[in-house]
């Protein structure tokens, strides 16, 4: 794997780390299986792209993209909480609606953002080539988001949100407004996914209505790979695991792209990626070296299951 391909994989992995964190919030913290992300990822790209192409400021465009994503999350939460639609179905409804809405926003299925001023433009004069600037930028944004989320989940409100997902009846008994927590969590989750979409579109030069295909799968893969490697012992490791898991997933895709020398075809890409991820998940087995190291350093003896 070349240097450029590796940096590209890390960059795209870090961006999809935001998707991983978003999916972690809905799927793990709130216990809400949410497929809205397949629509909110291209939604972020569409909103940011349209505003940028119209001459708007890239940072304002990205902020509005986050807002649009949050709104999509609120719609799914409302369909579930107010109208009592099963969460999976509620999120599918929002997802398919977003397909049409994204087409409306962009006015066409593919929007070029090449040669426009993007969030990266202010940093491009600093002597760092795009090759390094893009992964660095993606890394800084994703780590700031991860840090803020870790802080949030340790706050009173964050604890209330975790209680909502873990045991809603108990949470309500403690005076927690569980619907408010669900609304907030779904808005946060999809806002983060839309942020990832907005940044992806700006860094890769286009927004496309097909951009969302399989976002949920990639997000879940990131969460689960992260859990397998760093474990779930603390919120901090759990959230960082989502980012690490996403980067590993992208490196697996990059490795799959390099598998032609083994007699594999371009059409085998998805299969090879799946096998590589499965290998990464199962090989270390129960005695994961990273986790073992952390276990030795942390609370003695008690191994996480």
């Amino acid at each position, binding site marked *: *794997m*070349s*240097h*450029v*391909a*590796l*940096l*590209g*994989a890390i*960059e*795209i992995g870090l961006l*999809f780390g935001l998707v991983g964190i978003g999916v972690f919030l809905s799927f793990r913290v709130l216990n809400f299986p949410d497929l809205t992300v397949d629509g909110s990822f291209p939604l972020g790209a569409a909103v940011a792209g349209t505003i940028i192409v119209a001459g708007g400021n890239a940072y304002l465009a990205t902020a509005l993209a986050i807002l649009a994503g949050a709104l999509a999350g609120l719609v799914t939460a409302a369909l579930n909480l107010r109208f009592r639609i099963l969460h999976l179905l509620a999120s599918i409804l929002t997802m398919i609606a977003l*397909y*049409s809405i994204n*087409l409306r926003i962009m006015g*066409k*299925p*593919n929007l*070029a*953002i*090449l*040669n426009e001023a993007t969030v990266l433009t202010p940093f491009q004069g600093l002597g760092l080539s795009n090759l390094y600037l893009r992964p660095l930028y993606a890394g800084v944004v994703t780590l700031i988001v991860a840090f803020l989320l870790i802080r949030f989940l340790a706050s009173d409100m964050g604890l209330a949100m975790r209680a909502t997902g873990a045991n809603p009846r108990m949470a309500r008994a403690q005076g927690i407004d569980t619907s408010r927590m669900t609304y907030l969590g779904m808005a946060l989750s999809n806002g983060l996914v839309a942020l990832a979409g907005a940044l*992806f579109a700006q*860094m*890769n*030069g*286009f927004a*496309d*209505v*097909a*951009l969302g*295909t*399989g976002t949920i799968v*990639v997000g879940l893969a990131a969460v689960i790979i992260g859990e397998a490697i760093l474990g779930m012992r603390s919120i901090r490791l759990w959230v960082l695991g989502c980012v690490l898991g996403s980067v590993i997933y*992208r490196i697996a*895709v*990059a*490795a799959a*792209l*390099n*598998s*032609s*020398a*083994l007699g594999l075809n*371009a*059409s085998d*890409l*998805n299969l090879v990626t799946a096998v*590589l991820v499965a*290998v*990464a998940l199962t*090989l*270390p*087995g*129960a*005695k994961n*070296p990273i986790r073992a190291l952390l276990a030795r350093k942390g609370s003695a003896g008690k191994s996480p299951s």
Partner: protein
Amino acid sequence: MKRSRWGLMAGAAALAAILLAAAQGRSADTVTIAVTAIVEHPALDAVRDGVRDELEAEGYAQGKNLTFVYESAQGNPATAAQIARKFVGDGPDVIVPISTPSAQAVVAATQDIPVVFTAVTDPLDAKLVTNLEKPGGNVTGVRDTAPIAKQLALIREILPNAKVIGMPYNPGEANGVALLNMVKKEAPALGFSVVEAAAPKSSDVMAAAQSLVGKADVIYVSTDNQIVSAFASVVKVGVDNKLPVFAGDTDSVPRGAIAAIGFDYYDVGRQTGKIVVRVLKGEKPGDIAVQDVGTLQLFVNPGAAKAMGVTIPDAVMQRAKKVVQ
């Protein structure tokens, strides 16, 4: 503990083997052409094969002085972006992206490596180039803007009394929407009106075609990738209801369209390959104008016509480049 360490080492070795296998060196007199498409389907695959065959016709032989790399993003734009990065990292002599999103991802990833895009409907709107005559920079290519007026004229010639054209299309595909708009623009001049039928998923294509029964006198399938990939279901609706089906690409004629005047995507690949060779011989991509597809061909399928209750006039039969039996 010991067992898991062996397992881990085996896994690491397997991964390393894959990574190393890909990093084989190449000698100085070998050229590397890296081709990528957003998805695999017959027309896009034909473009790829055309590029490769043109290179071989020009004396670049695979395994000797040509390394020909091909990757498909399997429909996923994020993978397209990763393929673009991989190609830029491998440093091929020319990158050939097939289709709009693949081309955008490649153009966003490099300002240095020559890019010869192909099968892009509107390179200006896709912002691949700012000027078709003199693109500048490292990018040029072939655009496959469809000869809509000629295709509608063909339908008029075979069906003098048809009034309404039914057009299934995918609202999620840039290409499909652009073609629908072009048909709507050209149709009145030939006395046609247009009824559209949206099919956002492959599984919707059959229903979209059925919705046109009774509303349209003829179904026209443009080079919308999704409709083309589910073309068989449109043909079935056409045969069952004696509703003539025409296509925008000649590859669809053996699959059951009555006739099509269009590009053979293999020829599009050959034409693209010619530009690639010019770049390999030292021309700057930015100095080569973006080309329209050169040769148009007429394919007819009398069997399909009969099944849909239509007779193809002799004048059309005689002009046909290929008659599908």
